[in-house]
Structures are given as C-alpha cells and as structure tokens.
C-alpha cells in the first residue's frame, strides 16, 4: 500500500480562522447584549420565577410527606448565595464562565473519546477500523490543551460554577450539612472549606494519565509506519488494555467532579455512565463526520461504504444507548419522587429557559438519529451521515449545556450569541489542533497488520 497524507491547506485554515473570528464577534455581541439586559431580568422576573420553583419544591415535599430538610437545604443554599457576604459576579461574566466550562467539558470529551476509540479497536483486535484509526488519534491531540484550559479556567470559574468551593459552607452560620458530609471528596486531606487538593489532584492525574497513554499508543502507531514490525501492534494493544481499565474509573469520576458537582446537593448513580454515553456517541459522530468530509475531498480510499456502515451502526446503537441511560436516570427519579432528587428535573422542566432544551435534547439525540439512521442504506451513504452527525454533535452540546447551565445560572440562563460564539471558538481551536496533527502523519497506517483485512471488509 502506498502512503497517503492529508494536507491541511491554507484555504481550510483560512475558513477556520474566519469561522473563529465570526465566533469571537458573536461572543462579544452576546456579552454586550447580556450586559445591557442582564440585570433587570435577573432581579425582577427571575426572582419571581424562582419563588415559583420553590413553591413546586415545597409542594413536592408536602405531597411525599418527606422531612422538610431538602427544600430547607435548598433555601439555605440560596441564602448564602445572596447574603453570605460573597461578591456577586455580574450575570454576563457568570454566563461566560458557564460557557467556558460547558465547552471545556464537551471538547475534553471529544479528545478523550478519540483515544478511547483507538484503544477499544486495539483491545478488541478489530480489523475493520484499521484504515480510519488516525482520525480519532488526531482528535486526541486536543488532550493537553484541554487539560491546561480546564485547570486554568477552573480557578476563574470556581466560585460561580462550583457552589461547594465557598468556604463558609463548612462552618458557622451558613454550614451546610450535606456538603460537610461530602467535603472529603473535594478537600481531603486538607480541612473542609480550604483548598480542594483532592479534587485538583484528580484533575491533574487524570489528564496526565490520559496524555501519557496517548503518547505511548501514538508512538507505537507511528513507529509501525517506519519499520512495519508487528510488535508495535502488540505493544499498542497492551497499552490500550491498561488504558481502558484506567478510563473506566477516571471517566466516571471526572463526570462527578466536573459536572455533577455543579449541583452539589444532588446526586445520581447513573451520572458517570450518562456523561460517558454522551461523550462517546458525540465522539463517534465527529470521527464519522471527519471521515466523510475527507472522503468527499478525495482522501481515504481505504474506507468504503462497508466501513461507514459499521461506524454508522456504532452511532445508531450508541444514540439508543445514550437514550437508555438518560431514561434510566429520569424514570427512577420521576418514579421515586424524592424531592432532593427531583429538584434536578424540576429546575430543567419547570422553567421557561430550559424546558425547550430538555425536549430538544431528546429530539436531536434520540428521535432524529433513531429514525434517520435506521435503514441499512442510511448508514452506508455519506449524504445521510453528513446530515445526522451534525445533528448529534449539536444535540450533545445541548446535553452538556443542560447538565451544567441550570446549576450555574439558575433562572438567568439563556441561549444566544454568547453560547454560539464560544462554541465556534472552541470548535475552531479543536479542529485546528486535530487537522494540523492529522496532516503530520500518514492518513492511514500502511503497515497495520489488519489493513488487508480492513480492505476486504464486507458486510
């Protein structure tokens, strides 16, 4: 087999740059609009709605004849938010912080799923994907940027995004029993309310581990191109197997750390899986979209409709898997009707800001992929994959938006130019890193021991 290389043309770079600039302009525009309208809205209208929300929560408590703690707890939480002596961040800035965090989590997911995809192909000794593994590998190049961005931005966003970081919640008048109970998760081995050493350490260790395995697996993949020795494949498989075990734990814990702790009083035992499912199906959609676009530009002759069919089945199956996890979480909370759990869905469903996102989430991530990708032909034809993948990519952005925003912005949450602009900036940065690294190595591994099998793949 001859070598094939992707050239990241200056035209493509220019398009990306323009998209990034448009995103930046939209972001500025959105911020200015928020600055002008944010305050009055937040105080008058929002307060009213929040009162209504509490009424609902109280009703729930009464109807379930449960102890009064949960609602009381929530009210207490509000109290220290308002007169606990904290400096209130302006809504527009809070909105930027929120967007920063949503996109951090979303694009970290894409990068780590790139590595995860490669790892499961090795661990399962899969032959079909031999021709397209370089695309997820290129996506994983975003990992170090994601880690640095996340670590730095965490210190900016922490007091607005992560309520539990407020030190006065752990002693004195505003002491919060629930958070004191959970404090070891964040502050161990230091005292509750001080620096969250355990939390920050986890973040650093996870990114370091992921990056380390990424470097190792990448090294073997590229070394194989040069000498064609099959030992590289065996080594990559060994690293992949170890990485998968680490990823199983770290993906769940990072979901609790980075997303679930935005609502620190609430918990769901499904959450790790839920975030993984969302990251995974979204990563598959991005891989497929890049493959399809590359093919339409004349690259990747080694990938044909049989391979697209397989990855299409992946997307179809995991869209349903995501829905299954989503529904399992929703049904149990809905049916048990315990106020401290239902508050999560009440915040999202009983609100004019988030209700549409809640249903849009289901439409984009379940109904449309399910119906559009059901037939065999749909998975084999690039035109339909090119339609469904963007739907899923946008849909899962909304999924993360819906996980994080209500906990941060409460009734001030909105969707506008700020959100679109920030997503575009992050997306351009991610694509820039992915594509420039894709251009640095051959587009497919010409010495992969299973390339021949992949070329004859037939389903």
């Amino acid at each position, binding site marked *: 087999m001859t070598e094939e290389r992707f050239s990241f043309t200056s035209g493509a770079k220019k398009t990306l740059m323009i998209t990034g600039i448009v995103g930046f302009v939209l972001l500025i525009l959105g911020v200015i609009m928020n600055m002008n309208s944010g305050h009055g809205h937040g105080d008058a209208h929002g307060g009213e709605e929040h009162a209504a929300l509490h009424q609902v929560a109280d009703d729930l408590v009464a*109807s*379930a004849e449960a102890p009064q703690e949960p609602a009381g707890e929530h009210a207490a939480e509000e109290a220290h938010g308002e007169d606990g002596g904290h400096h209130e961040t302006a809504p527009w800035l809070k909105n930027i912080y929120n967007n920063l965090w949503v996109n951090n989590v979303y694009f970290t997911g894409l990068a780590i799923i790139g590595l995860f995809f490669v790892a499961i192909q090795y661990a399962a000794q899969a032959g079909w994907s031999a021709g397209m593994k370089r695309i997820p590998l290129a996506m994983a190049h975003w990992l170090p940027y994601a880690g640095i961005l996340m670590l730095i931005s965490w210190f900016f966003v922490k007091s607005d995004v992560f309520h539990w970081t407020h030190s006065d919640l752990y002693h004195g008048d505003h002491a919060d029993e629930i958070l004191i109970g959970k404090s070891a998760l964040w502050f161990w081995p230091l005292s509750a309310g001080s620096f969250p050493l355990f939390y920050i350490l986890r973040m650093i260790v996870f990114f370091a581990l992921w990056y380390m395995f990424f470097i190792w697996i990448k090294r073997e993949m590229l070394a194989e191109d040069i000498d064609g020795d099959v030992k590289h494949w065996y080594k990559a498989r060994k690293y992949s197997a170890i990485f998968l075990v680490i990823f199983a734990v770290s993906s769940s814990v990072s979901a609790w750390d980075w997303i679930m702790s935005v609502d620190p009083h609430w918990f769901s035992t499904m959450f790790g899986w839920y975030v993984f499912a969302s990251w995974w199906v979204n990563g598959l959609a991005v891989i497929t979209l890049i493959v399809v676009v590359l093919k339409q530009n004349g690259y990747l002759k080694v990938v044909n409709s049989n391979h697209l069919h397989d990855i299409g089945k992946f997307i179809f199956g995991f869209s349903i898997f995501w829905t299954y996890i989503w*529904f399992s979480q*929703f*049904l149990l909370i*809905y*049916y*048990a*009707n315990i106020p401290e759990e239902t508050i999560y869905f009440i915040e999202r469903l009983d609100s004019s800001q988030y209700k549409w996102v809640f249903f849009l989430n289901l439409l984009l991530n379940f109904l449309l992929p399910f119906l559009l990708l*059901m*037939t*065999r032909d749909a998975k084999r034809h690039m035109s339909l994959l090119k339609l469904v993948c963007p739907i899923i990519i946008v849909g899962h952005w909304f999924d993360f938006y819906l996980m994080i925003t209500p906990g941060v912005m409460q009734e001030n949450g909105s969707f506008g130019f700020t959100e679109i602009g920030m997503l575009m900036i992050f997306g351009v940065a991610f694509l820039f890193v992915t594509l420039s690294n894709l251009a640095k190595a051959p587009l497919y591994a010409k010495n992969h021991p299973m390339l021949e099998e992949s070329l004859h793949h*037939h389903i």
Partner: protein
Amino acid sequence: MESNKNFVLGIYDDEDVLLSAVTKVRESGVKIHEVYSPFPVHGLDEVLGYKRTRLPIAAFLFGLLGTTLALTMQIWMLGFDWPMIIGGKNFASIPPFVPVTFELTVLLSALGMVATFMIISDLKPYKKPRLMDIRITDDKHVMAIDLAKNSLTIDQIKSIVGDSGASEVNDKKFED
C-alpha cells in the same frame, strides 16, 4: 414441463470456481434455481443477482404494532379499565409505560420477523426437505437449474454447466 421437478445439477469443488461459474452460466442466459454450499460463500448472493431482503420492513411494521399494542394496553388498563394511583402519578402517565412498550416492541418485531421469514422461505414443521445432493452437507457446492424455467434444451444446459468448471454434471428428478 412441470416446474420444481426436473433439475440439472452442477457439482463444484471450489468456491472460487463456483463464483466464476455462476457468472458464466448466468451470462449464457441460463436461469439458476439455487446454489447450495456447505458454508457461506462471500459474494455469492451478488453474482447470483439476488435483491436485498425486505425483511427489515416487516421488522419495522411489527415493531410499530408492538409499540401501539403496548401503549394501548397500558393506557386502557391503568387509565380506563381499572384506574389506580401509583406513586402519586397520573392514571395514564407515559414514563412508567416506556419499559414495557420497549420490550413489547422488541418482542413483536423479533417474533414477527421470524414468522415472516419462515413463511416466505416455506419453512414449516414436518416439511420434508428436498436434498439436491447429500454432499452439500460435506464438501461440495451444488448449482441447481430448473429445466422448466429455462427455454434451452437439457443438453445445451449441461454443456454450459460442464464448461463453467463443474467437476460433475448430474440430473435430478423429484417425484413428489
């Protein structure tokens, strides 16, 4: 001549020879009744010119039937026939019905697909199988040509099959 009674059988030793033979025989204008092989031969259905199965359509329709049936059943039972308050929910609240609906959709879709497949393939209990040649259960591939479906004479067909690489060319007559 009655159809499904008189066959010419080409016996092949090798699946690669079989694949090229099928193309050659079809190009000579002979209609092939069926090819029997002891193991799945990749690409055989393509050279035989078979259309893709329409079984997924049956699966979808049976699935739709299952969804409808499950929802109707539960809404009627818990909403109208015997209304019960469970966990403070509405009589006919959809979320708790979803697992049952999902299961019935899968069940009806699967069973319906199996039944459809059995009917269109004429597989029924106590059906006596027609074996063209006992060796298809061991190591030979057999191409069966129905004489009644072809306008060519038996000798012409036999020479076409023989030229295509068959190791034997036999006659087969079913009395039933």
